[in-house]
């Protein structure tokens, strides 16, 4: 079979992770590309985690939080929003397509939406193809 992207998802415990669970309980299927890591709030997602994922060979990184205004911690998602805005610029500077890094709002009741987000991101990354990071670093090492 073709290229199956590897996407790491950071989901906030209160909205998005619950939303993802809801997709399960309501049996909404989606691509098996995503690997979810639970955090209490999208504001916990240190940009280091995202860069770490990319350097470890992830084809994409998805960060999900509560919708603006609904944050369990009142403003955490806005902080995530600011960081992701700058992070996308940095990722671009690294020569990596910024579509590989994505921030989405998914509420506890949006199981279907979570599934759609994962499928859409998986499709886009399939078009982009595998991340070049690991191959390029290996080629550098091979030169020495």
């Amino acid at each position, binding site marked *: 079979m073709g290229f199956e992207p590897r996407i790491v998802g950071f989901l906030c415990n209160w909205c998005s992770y619950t939303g993802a669970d809801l997709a*399960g309980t309501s049996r909404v299927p989606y691509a098996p590309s995503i690997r979810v890591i639970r955090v209490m709030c999208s504001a916990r997602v240190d940009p280091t985690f995202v860069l770490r994922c990319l350097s470890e060979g992830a084809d994409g990184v998805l960060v999900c939080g509560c919708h603006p205004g609904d944050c369990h911690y009142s403003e955490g998602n806005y902080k995530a929003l600011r960081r992701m805005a700058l992070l996308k610029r940095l990722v671009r500077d690294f020569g990596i397509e910024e579509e590989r890094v994505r921030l989405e709002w998914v509420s506890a009741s949006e199981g279907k939406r979570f599934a759609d987000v994962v499928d859409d991101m998986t499709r886009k990354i399939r078009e982009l193809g595998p991340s070049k990071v690991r191959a390029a670093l290996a080629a550098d090492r091979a030169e020495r």
Partner: protein
Amino acid sequence: MGECRIGVYICNCGTNIAKVVDCDAVARAAQALSGVVVARSYKYTCSTPGQETIVKDIRELGLDRVVVAACSPRMHEPTFRRALQTAGINPYFLEMANIREQCSWVHSDPRAATEKAVDLMRAAVRRVVWHEPLEKRYVDMCHTTLVLGGGIAGLTAALELAEADKPVVLVEKQDHLGGNVARVDLTAPYLDSARDMLRDRVEQVRKHPMIQVLLESELEALEGYVGNFKAHIRTKEGPFDTPAGAVVVCTGYQEFDASRIEHYGYGRLPNVITSFELEQMLRQGRVLTREGKPPRCVALIHCVGSRSPEYHPYCSRVCCMTALKYGHEIKSNLPRCYVYDLYIDMHAFGKGCEDFYRRTSEMKTMFLMYEKGDLPRIEPAGDGDGCGMLIRIHEKLSGEEIEVPADLVVLMVGMEPREDAARVARLVNISQDKDGWFIESHPKLDPVATTTEGIFIAGACQAPKGIPGSVAQAQAASARILAKLAHEKIEVDAVFAEVNDDLCSGCRICNELCPYTAIEYDTARKRSHVISAMCKACGCCVAACPSGAIKGRHFTDRQITAQIEGVLEWASSQG
């Protein structure tokens, strides 16, 4: 850290997981990981025998870490933590991999699903190695409770607590107690007097030695955390500070402003009034038109401002029964007066209400049903009409265009959050939903607590509700507080952020970030530190700290990094 002894349990959840995920293969993969002593695939890990297996393994194989790959941790994490505790190891040495809700239930290809389950299990194993034993901690509790609002909910809460010999400070904005209930004549469905009901409650509160009532007063600021709040209150005598262990917010609601609906001409047509204006007439015992004549026909229009997309989408819950009540009261005041009741749906749930509805209709109140969004039109009547106004309505049941005569039109205005609700929410650090009502910590299982430890909500500030609901919530909140006060100290969660003082440089990046103002800056030492009892462990400051000096317990950088490496081991091995 390599010296862990890990047990891995792959739950089949009957066939819920096993029908897609090859659980034995996942167990085999687990067995191959360093540190894993035992890996079992089991039918129902959450069942008693399932848990016993874990306990037994911990005891006999000397496990010090446990990974359960099963349903969502939101489901059974507490269950398995208890199991670890039973076996005598710290409950936080558990990590779960969600291979049901987020795997077997959403993927159909067994190969891909199994591969994913292995990744998630591996990540959990890598993570659990870095878990640290966490202990619950306790802080002293101040026994005074601050009650905001002197309506029926506030009065009830205050009395409940005072009766248990706990001091209460009751803050009321107006110059009298009683809130909105004080504006009501009789109550539905039993038609007993709200006034009598309130009078002795207010008396008791006024006289109670344990209750300090502050009228014409407002909360200015609230510092501290559960058990140790400090409230700054503005009274007409000047500022007043009090410590408090807990806060009950009973700030109630305000009525919808009928003039916002041009269509009904409230404020333009003299004899279009609101339900509260009618209450006033009823309490004074005479229902009259502006011209001072007793009306011959009265029309009650439901859902004014409620259940409409452009105003409030929600049902205000009490108006239907209140309208029926008016039917009764008007008839008993003016036996010959006709009452027309124009409604969308008649919501008559609740004890005695359906019966009340039946009795009212027998009293010749005429019920006319209109379509949501197709509002009745009020027009001044012509001379020959023999009435003040004519109301046009598409009657839904008959399907006919009907003209209703009316000398008095009563708009059943709904409830809405008080305009100062946002300010209150900010002061006590709780959230509002999209309509502006305060959010409870769980809609079903924890309806009076909030996401801020020690702050409770009761009455109509949480959502539209009648007197019984408000009283019940007030009593529930009091019970919750009394339960806390039963212990000298209160428990605070073991999961919170802490600053490593040896690494903090006092850059103050984190200071502004904390939604709970749990981060304090020591100007003299130029260091920041977290007041753990106030911390809710969102981890925002942990991610922001440029020195990596802030550690988010149970969500440490090391733990999450191990998880990342775990899920991507496959990818990275592809080079």
